[in-house]
C-alpha cells in the first residue's frame, strides 16, 4: 500500500508544480461553466432544477482532458529512463500503475469538487433530486476512472506522449460514442451487445439517477481490464 501512496503523492505534486493541474482546473471549469450556465441548452432552458445539462457537458470535457493528463504518466518515465530507477526500488509494476492511476483520479475528483457550487446554486432555485445528483457525480467519477485506465494503458505502450494521447482518444472514442452509433444501426442481440459496451448507455442511466449493479460492474471491469493491460505491457519492458 505504502509505495502506491508515495508514487501518488509525487505524481500529484508534479501535476501542481508543472501547472498542468491548474490549466486543467481552469479549462474544465470554464468549459463546463460556460455551457452549463450561459450557452446552448443550458440549465435555464430545461425549466427544471436538475444538473443533467452539466453532466452531459462534463461527459465530453472529461473525455478530452483525461488523455492529456494520462499521456505523460508512463510514456515520460519510459523515455527518460526513470522507470528503471523506480522499478529497481522495492516497488512492483502494479504499485506504479496503481499509484499513477490514483493520482490522476484524485485530480479529476478535485476538479469535480470545484463544481459543487453548481449543486448549491441549483438546489436554491428549486427542488433538486439529491439522489440523481449523487449518481451523476458517481457516474462521472467512474467514467473518468475508465478513461484514466485506458490512458494509462496507452501511455504504457509507447515512450512518445503524443502517440499515447492519440491512442487513448482512439480507444476511448469506441466506448464514448462509436459503440453507441453501432448499437443504433443494429437490431437484436448485436445491437444490445454494442449498447452494453457503450459507456454512454451506462452513464446516461446513472445521470438519470438510476444506480444499477450492472452499470457498476461494467465500469469496474473496464477499469480493472485497463489497469491490468497497462501492468502487463509495463512488465514487458520492451520500449
Amino acid at each position, binding site marked *: 500500500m505504502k509505495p502506491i501512496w508515495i508514487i501518488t503523492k509525487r505524481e500529484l*505534486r508534479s501535476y501542481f508544480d*508543472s501547472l498542468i493541474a491548474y490549466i486543467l482546473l481552469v479549462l474544465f471549469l470554464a468549459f463546463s461553466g460556460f455551457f452549463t450556465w450561459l450557452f446552448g441548452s443550458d440549465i435555464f432552458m430545461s425549466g427544471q432544477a436538475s444538473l443533467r445539462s452539466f453532466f452531459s457537458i462534463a461527459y465530453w470535457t472529461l473525455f478530452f482532458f483525461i488523455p492529456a493528463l494520462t499521456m505523460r504518466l508512463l510514456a515520460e518515465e519510459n523515455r527518460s529512463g526513470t522507470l528503471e530507477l523506480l522499478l*529497481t526500488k*522495492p516497488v512492483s509494476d502494479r504499485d506504479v500503475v496503481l499509484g499513477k492511476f490514483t493520482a490522476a483520479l484524485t485530480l479529476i475528483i478535485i476538479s469535480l469538487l470545484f463544481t459543487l457550487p453548481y449543486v448549491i446554486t441549483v438546489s436554491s432555485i428549486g427542488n433538486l433530486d439529491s439522489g440523481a445528483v449523487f449518481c451523476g457525480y458517481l457516474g462521472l467519477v467512474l467514467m473518468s476512472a475508465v478513461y484514466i485506465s485506458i490512458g494509462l494503458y496507452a501511455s504504457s505502450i509507447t515512450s512518445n506522449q503524443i502517440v499515447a494521447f492519440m491512442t487513448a482518444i482512439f480507444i476511448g472514442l469506441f466506448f464514448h460514442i462509436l459503440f453507441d452509433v453501432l448499437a443504433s444501426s443494429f437490431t437484436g442481440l448485436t445491437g444490445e451487445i454494442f449498447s452494453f459496451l457503450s459507456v454512454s448507455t451506462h452513464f446516461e442511466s446513472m445521470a438519470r439517477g438510476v444506480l444499477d449493479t450492472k452499470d457498476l460492474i461494467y465500469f469496474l471491469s473496464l477499469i480493472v481490464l485497463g489497469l491490468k493491460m497497462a501492468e502487463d505491457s509495463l512488465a514487458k519492458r520492451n520500449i
Partner: protein
Amino acid sequence: MDITVENVLKTYGLQRAVDSISFHVKTGEILGFLGPNGAGKTTTMKIITNYMIPDKGVVKIGGKSMPEYANELKRHIGYLPENNPLYDDMPMLDYLEFVAGLQEIPKEKIDERIREMVRVCGLNAEKHKKIGELSKGYKQRVGLAQALIHDPEILILDEPTTGLDPNQIVEIRKLIRELGQHKTVILSTHILPEVEATCDRILIINKGKIVADGTSENLRKQAQGQDMIKAGIKDGDPNEIFKALQELPGSSVVDFIDRNRNRFEIQSKPDHDLAREIFNLCVARKWVITELTPVETKLEDVFRELTMN
C-alpha cells in the same frame, strides 16, 4: 550478501545480448565489469537488479533467487543506472525524500539519511535547486546519493564516474573503495585505470560472454605469458650485440626497437632470469647498459587482445 549469476541468457530478437554467463561475487568484493560498448554489461546489470527477467538462468542474491524474492532483495540493492535518469522537475531534496520513502526508511530517520547523503556526496552547495538545473557532475552525485540512501548491502553502479571532473573522480573512487569494505559492489566502466584503482577483481565481457576473470595482475600475467625486457646497450656494434643477445640461454626472441640508439626488446624463455644474463653479458664484453626495463603488459593491451576480432 553475495551474488551468484548462473547461466544467464538474454536475447534481443536474434542477438544474444548476454550469452549464458555465470559468475560469483563474494560479500565485500568490488567487481569491475569491463567490456566494449554493447558487450552486455548494462543488460547483465539490469538482470541482476531484476529490472529485466532473463530468458534463461538464475540470479541469486544471498542465496535467494531473484524473481521470487524480488521485493525483499531489492531493498538491499543500490542501483545507479546508465545515463543516470532522474526526475528533472523535482527539487533535489524532495527527490531524495521520495526515494527514501520508497526504500521504506523509517520516517524519523529520513532527514538524518538525507543530511548524511548530502554530506557524503558533496551536494551541499546546490541542495535547493531542481535536478534539471544541476550540472552533469552534480546530477551524477544525486544519482549516487539515491543509490546509497538506504545503506544497501549491494551496490550496482553502471559507469559511475561519467561526467565528473578529475577531482570528483578521485573522490568517488575513494568513496567506492570505502564502501566496498563492507558492501558487495559491481561497477561497470570502460575507463581502464578506474578498474585498476578501485576493483578487487575484473571481469571482461565481450559479445555477451565472459572472456577473462581475475585480478588485474592475474590478467596481465595470463596475457603476457613470458617476461619482456627493454634494453639499451652502448659501446658495441649493433649487430654484434644483437647476436650476443640471441645467444643468451634465457632469450627467445630479440628485436630492434631503435637500431641507431642500440635499443632492443628481448623476450625471455620461461624460468630464466634474463635481466641477470644481460647484465653479466654486458659486464663481460664491457658494454654500457643505458636502459634495462621490464615491460609490463598494460590492462589496455589485455583488453584489446581479448575484445578485438
